[in-house]
């Protein structure tokens, strides 16, 4: 490889250090009023030189600049995975959905006896373990939630029937369907679905820590 000539190097350095893309004319003026034809020749040489490298010299609307080669674009935005343990509140909500699905947020709250912050369901959906499964055809048409195949995979379950202890819990009468009219009559319900998100257990829901390893 022969060293590039002075002008090529000057154009290269100028475009590198410039905060904005530059036109041929701006480059020529910057480099002390040389011929635009010479600048064009230098740009051609540089374009050729950088065609197979990690960076490219490109022209966009008559303005020239260096940019990352398209095949390398993935390097600019990397995703780093980060193990996080599910918070206690989220685990409870997940367990309730798994045992009672499909279930609305109001029903989850009724079972837990405490309001559920919206963030909790978001986390479970982000984790890919819970999905929205339509709406219940009752007044207010609340969204109902169910578990996913990924949920079964992550917890090593062949089906929801495998959830250990489900039969025993049912035998103890603890999994009886919630009678919503009765709940209403007892004024035991939490607030309506979707409201009061910021009031209850906001702290609890977001507590989660990195796994030690």
């Amino acid at each position: 490889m022969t060293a590039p000539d002075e002008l090529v190097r000057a154009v290269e350095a100028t475009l590198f250090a410039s905060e904005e893309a530059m036109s041929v004319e701006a480059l020529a003026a910057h480099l002390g009023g040389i011929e635009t034809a010479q600048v064009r020749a230098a740009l051609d040489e540089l374009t050729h030189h950088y065609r197979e490298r990690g960076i490219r010299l490109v022209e966009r609307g008559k303005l020239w600049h260096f940019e990352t080669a398209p095949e390398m674009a993935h390097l600019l935005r990397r995703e780093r995975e980060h193990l996080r343990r599910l918070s206690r509140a989220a685990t409870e909500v997940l367990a309730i959905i798994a045992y009672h699905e499909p279930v609305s947020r109001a029903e989850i709250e009724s079972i837990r006896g405490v309001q559920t912050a919206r963030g909790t369901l978001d986390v479970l959906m982000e984790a890919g373990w819970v999905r929205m499964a339509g709406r219940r055809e009752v007044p207010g048409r609340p969204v109902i939630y169910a578990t996913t195949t990924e949920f079964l995979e992550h917890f090593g379950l062949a089906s929801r029937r495998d959830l250990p202890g489900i039969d025993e819990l049912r035998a103890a009468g603890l999994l009886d369907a919630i009678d919503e009219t009765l709940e209403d009559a007892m004024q035991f319900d939490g607030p309506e679905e979707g409201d009061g998100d910021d009031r209850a257990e906001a702290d609890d829901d977001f507590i989660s820590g990195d796994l030690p390893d």
Partner: protein
Amino acid sequence: MIAEETMEVSLPLALTLPEGEEDWIGPANEQRSEDALYLELDGWEGPLDLLLDLARRQKVDLRQISILALVDQYLGYIDRAGALRLELAADYLVMAAWLAYLKSALLLPKEEQEEPSAEELALRLQWRLQRLGAMREAAARLMARDRIGRDVFLRGAPEGLRIDRKSLWHSSAFELIQAYGQVKARTAPRIYQVRDRMVMTLDSAIDRVSAMLGVTLEWMDLRDFLPPHAEPSLRKSVLASSFVAALELARLGRAEIAQEEIFGPMRLRRISR
């Protein structure tokens, strides 16, 4: 006269300095008027700096300077400042005094010198001047390097690297079941049972106390009214009931109660009619 002195010694410095660092050439290199001495002294970074400047005017390697000549030059400078009645910073005067001492010590015969010897002190001073000179030269060379933002430039518009943190949630089947159990335990209806305990009812206590009061007119301690062989758990109930029974009988005017001191024994006797 100061101008003369200054002119006389305004010769190129032995040390070559990088271009564009004129700053490093001492103020004495410039021509100035007679009353400029104070300003000159102000321009030096202390007495050591003035000494270094004077030493460089000897135009020899700093290792070969004449300390005696240097001392004379310095003292001459200070004298002239004194003659012009210019205020000198204390450290310049301290240095002058120390140099005067050094000079007299250097002129003494060797055998009369104290430790450390004058030669050692002179060498030490020379070494310090060398070191200061070296640092000054190093600073100039450092400043003259290719500096970012002046001589070399970083990329003007880097795209920037972004790292998105993606949470990978983790839990286990055991945690799931445990959580469900906790929810159920927390929200399950609770049934409270009260155990059947042996008690003495107020009615039976009134019967017992009034029956015993009928036996005598003397004062009796409340504790004497208690049945002798009661179980410990029953005793408290008996004592409480008997006390309430005594109060009830006093209210009905059938008994009187006396207690000599707080927490003292409570005595009881029938009111005879």
